[in-house]
Every structure is written in C-alpha cells, then in structure tokens.
C-alpha cells in the first residue's frame, strides 16, 4: 500500500497524476487501458473555442517573431504581469488541479508538501536567482552557467541535464494527456497524443515564446476562474466556516482525523526530506521555467513577475486545499460518482472534476475538462520551446557550429528541433502508453535538483568554481539521480518486477544533490590549472554585470 501511495503522489507531483497504480481510497487510477468515454460535446465545444483563439494568437505572434530573440524570449517585451501569470500557469496545471486534489482527497495532510514546496521555492528564486539570471543570460540558463567557464564542455553537460528534464517531463505529460483526453473527451489515445503534439508544434514553431506565453496566460486565467468558483461553492456550502470543512472531511474519510496530520504517505524522515528537497530545489532547475526570465526587459520586471507569479500560485494552492478537503465531503460516499463496486468513476484523478460537476453541473464540468486539456497543451509547448532553445542555441549555435551562425540558420534549426521534439513526444507517448511512468516524473525533478540547480547557483555565487568542478558536479548529480531511481521501488520493483528495491526511497535527492555540491567543491578546489585561474578572475566581470545589468541585450516592443 505504501508503494501505491508513493507512486500516486510522485505522479501527482509532476502533473502526470493520470497514471499510476490503483488509488487507496478506492477506484482505479488510469493505469493501462482506460475505458473510452462517450463524446462530451460541451467540453469539446469549449476546447474548440480555446484552440481557435490560441491559433489566432499564434498567427499574430508569428508575424512578430522574426529574430531568434523574438523566438526564444519574445523579444524581451513581455510585461511583468503577463510573464508572472504565465509562470504561475506552469504550476497551475492539470496535475495540480486534478493530481494534488486527488492526493489530498486520498491522503490528506502529507499531500500538502507538494504545494508548500513550490511556494518555498519561488521566493528564493526571486531573492537569489531571478535578477542575476536576467542580467547574465540571453535565452537559456546555460548561457549563465557558461558565462565564465570553458564554453564547450560546460554547455554539453548542462544541455544533457536540461534536455533530460525536458524529455522525461514530456513523456510524463504526453502519457497523461492521452489518458486524460480519452477519459474526458472520448478520443482514442493515439489521436489524442498526435493532436496534442500537432497543436504544440503549431504554437511553438510559428509563434515562439510570444505564442507560448499567451497560451499559458489564457489558460491560467481560465483555471483561476474555474478553481475560484468551485472553492467558493465549497466554502459557501459550509456557511463560510473553514473549520467545518476539515471537521466534515475527518468525519467522512475512512482514515478519520489522520488525514489532518502527517504520516499517511511519507513514513520516514529521509523520504520526507528527500521530497522536500526535490520540490524546492527541483523547481529552481527547470529549464522551461528559468527561460521565462529572459522574456521581460530587465531585472526590475523579473522581480515584479515573480511577485505576480507567487501571489497567483499561493492563491491557487489555497483553493486546492479547500477543494481537496471539500471533495471528501461531497464526492466520497456520493453514489453518483461511484460504480456498483464502490469504486470512484474514472479513478482518483477525477475527484476534482466530480466535485466540479456536483457544484456547477454539466456546463462547469465541460468548462473545466476543456481547461484541463488546455493546461497540458500550454505546459508541453513551454517544455518543447525550452528543448528547442537548448538544441538550437546552446548546442548548435554556441557549441558545434564551425564559425558564426546567422539568425536565419539558427531559427531554422530551432524549428527543426521543435518538430523533432514533437515527433519524439508522440513516439514515446505511444511507447509508454501502458507503462507505469511514475518514475519518469520523479526523475525529471530529481535531475533538475541535482544537476541544473547546483551548477547554476554555484556559477552565480561561488567565485572559485571552475569548469572541472562544474562538470564533476553535473556528472555526479546525473549519474546518482538516474542510478538511484533505477534501484528505487518505482523502477526496480514496479518496472523490473523484483521483490525488494535496492534503494528504499522514491527520490534520490537527499543523497544526489548534496553529493553534486560536494563534487563541485572538491574538483574546483583541486583544479590548479591556468585555465581555472582565468575563470576565477572573470568572476569580477560577471559580478558587475549580474548586479548592474551593464551590457545586457536591448528589448523590442510588441
């Protein structure tokens, strides 16, 4: 049971809560083949309108996307409120709404760490990372890491870290998308995966960052409206008495008051700390999130956008807490949402949508189903853009090309990369259809926390980091996070079928992240080469630029 709970929450964590083994509170999760639903016309109509509007925006964005600076960073002309809403949109995903709600419904308090971890990460990104990132980089976080280090090796190592996160995250999203669409709209899995990939390629390859930001922005606003409505209805049903929501949940839930306290999911301190570290520091290493800081004109706007993002996310997570505990009262034990055997219809991830239906009827259900689909589109578009930027900018233009690359060449490569990533997403989405991919999600965040984050933060703040140190740290983080996850319950037991895992925790971060930092330190200190001295000396220039922004690229207006 513990394993079941763990993989459920792992999945919820990375927006792929639609996959995973059966759900403890009754009802099968969407694992293996799911039953195709009859066509839901209301949801399809609303989704069709969303697609039309976003394609219109893409057409407009395409006319404003002429240079690589437009493509990767929307010309640096995004306003702080727009960027902030889009950042929040990256976290207000189908999985936050469906997955965390489902996790709270099943296990209560322990699931809250998934929301709290995000809210602890963002302020620290603001205090330590946002400003320096904006001042030092142009399109990707790898620009910042390679600022004073030897370009070629460090770009390759960071690009591997960045692309691993993008690809693992994409697999998780595609499989989740296919299952969700099958369930909500009654479309075949394979068509659903192709449709998602097709729309994503349209947004990204034509509209670049400008279209991607707008798609994310519109979706975030729709989700906030829907979520506010449901949470308001829950609070209203309890006559605006918050205490009563929890009291009623504890009375109805089979675990009783245990759902209001720690212990139902995470049993030992190392697991808890590992999840805590992965949540907080993994977010600081997500390439598609870090990329958004280059879309605003300067450090001042970067700060404003984080404030907008943090406020919207905080508000949304509080709604989720109300919705999750409220769902226990209105969905659990409601025969309308359970089959004859007492299993919840559609599995644990449908809890939020059942509550939506209970509170707002068929119209609201159609609306929120369409928004859930839109959410996946927006997130995969952002991921693909980050992947394309890494391939075209970091690898092609800055590492492997002989001689200077023109704007047109780099744009062409980034569009080819977008198509390739879209195709990879379809192929892997189909290959993993009936697999348990919960581990893929854990892997993406663990790599972000153990590879990207340590290299990034040390390159910004530690004068004595050298290329050798950064590479040693990156490789250590990468090998440990992948290796330990293979030996963990979610792969060793669930995928390979061995009885006992060789590594007991689902997250390797408790070990992999500190060891990555240790390797950076050790190999930097031991590095006495002349190259290392030069890199340390360059820190002064980097410091001046990171604090003042002298020399950063200009902006364009839209």
């Amino acid at each position: 049971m513990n394993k079941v709970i763990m993989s459920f929450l792992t999945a919820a964590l990375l927006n792929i809560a639609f996959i995973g083994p059966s759900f403890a509170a009754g009802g099968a999760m969407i694992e293996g083949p799911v039953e195709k639903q009859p066509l839901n016309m209301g949801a399809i109509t609303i989704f069709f309108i969303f697609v039309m509007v976003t394609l219109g925006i893409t057409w407009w964005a395409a006319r404003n996307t002429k240079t690589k600076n437009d493509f990767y960073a929307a010309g640096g002309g995004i306003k702080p409120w727009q960027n902030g809403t889009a950042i929040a949109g990256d976290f207000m995903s189908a999985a936050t709404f469906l997955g965390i709600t489902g996790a709270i419904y099943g296990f209560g308090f322990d699931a809250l760490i998934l929301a709290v971890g995000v809210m602890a990460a963002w302020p620290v990104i603001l205090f330590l990372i946002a400003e320096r990132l904006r001042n030092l980089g142009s399109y990707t976080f790898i620009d910042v890491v390679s600022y004073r280090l030897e370009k070629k090796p460090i770009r390759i190592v960071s690009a591997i870290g960045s692309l691993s996160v993008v690809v693992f995250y994409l697999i998780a999203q595609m499989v989740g998308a296919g299952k969700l669409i099958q369930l909500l709209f009654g479309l075949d899995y394979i068509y659903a995966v192709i449709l998602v990939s097709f729309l994503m390629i349209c947004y990204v390859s034509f509209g670049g960052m400008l279209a991607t930001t707008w798609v994310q922005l519109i979706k975030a606003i729709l989700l906030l409206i829907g979520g506010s409505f449901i949470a308001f209805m829950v609070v209203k049903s309890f006559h605006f008495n918050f205490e009563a929501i929890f009291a009623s949940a504890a009375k109805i839930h089979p675990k009783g008051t245990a759902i209001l306290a720690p212990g139902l999911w995470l049993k030992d301190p190392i697991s808890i700390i590992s999840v805590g570290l992965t949540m907080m520091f993994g977010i600081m290493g997500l390439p598609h999130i870090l990329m958004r800081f280059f879309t605003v004109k300067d450090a001042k706007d970067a700060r404003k956008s984080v404030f907008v993002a943090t406020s919207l996310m905080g508000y949304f997570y509080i709604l989720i807490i109300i919705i999750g505990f409220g769902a226990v009262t209105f969905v659990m034990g409601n025969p309308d949402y359970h089959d004859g055997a007492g299993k919840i219809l559609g599995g644990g991830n449908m809890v939020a949508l059942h509550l939506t239906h209970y509170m707002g009827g068929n119209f609201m259900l159609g609306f929120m189903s369409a928004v859930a689909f839109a959410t996946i589109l927006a997130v995969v578009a952002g991921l693909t853009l980050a992947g394309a930027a890494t391939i075209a900018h970091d690898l092609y233009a800055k590492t492997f090309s002989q001689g200077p690359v023109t704007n047109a060449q780099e744009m062409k490569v980034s569009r080819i990369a977008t198509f390739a990533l879209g195709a990879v997403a379809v192929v892997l989405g189909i290959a993993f259809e009936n697999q348990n991919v919960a581990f893929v999600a854990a892997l993406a965040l663990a790599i972000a926390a153990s590879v990207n984050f340590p290299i990034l933060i040390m390159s910004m703040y530690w004068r004595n980091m050298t290329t050798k140190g950064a590479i040693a740290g990156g490789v250590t983080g990468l090998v440990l996070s992948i290796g330990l996850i293979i030996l963990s319950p979610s792969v060793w037991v669930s995928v390979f079928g061995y009885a006992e895992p060789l590594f007991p925790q689902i997250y390797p971060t408790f070990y992999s992240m500190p060891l990555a930092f240790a390797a950076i330190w050790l190999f930097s200190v031991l590095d006495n080469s002349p190259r290392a001295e030069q890199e340390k000396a360059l820190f002064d220039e980097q410091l001046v630029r990171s604090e003042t922004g002298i020399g950063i690229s200009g902006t364009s207006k839209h």
Partner: protein
Amino acid sequence: MPLSGTETEKCLHHPQFKQLIRARGRFSLVFSLMILLSYGLYVLGMCFAPTAMAQPFEEGGSMTYGILMAVGVILWGMICSGIYSWWANRHFEAIKHALLKDLGYE
C-alpha cells in the same frame, strides 16, 4: 557584449557598487533564510514532531497545527516576495541608476 577590464575595475571599486552589493546581498540572504527556516520547520516538523503537528489549534477543533503551518508557509512566501520586490524595485534600483549614471552608462 563583454566588459573590458578597466570598465570592470572602475565599477567594482565604485562606492555605490559596494553599497549595492552589500545591501542587496544582506537583504536577499535574510529573506532566503526566513523562507528556508519556515519551510525547514514545516518539513522537519513532519519528520520529527508529527504528533505536535496533529494537535488541533483550538481545543476540540479540526484545524491542526500542521495545516495552519502549511497555509502559513504559503502565505509567508507571498508576503516575503511582495516586500522584497517592492523594496528592491525602489531602493536598489535607485542606487543602481545613480551608479550607472555616474559611470556614464545612462
């Protein structure tokens, strides 16, 4: 565009640059510690004091200390980012612009 050595030196030893570095460094460190401390308390509380977190906030009530802490960390994050970006955008930007003007970049 990389900065030349003399440009870097000139800025690095400018009193206003030193002031900016010191003020901003201290400010962001204090704020980061406040967040890390609250989140750390919450995570370590789950590890080592689960029974304390399970206690209801009011006698006979259902809202536990744990839930209040979770909501507290969320609100605390919102408040700290608000204060930081408000302060930084006024205070640090002012120092920075004075510095850039003095160095002839603006």
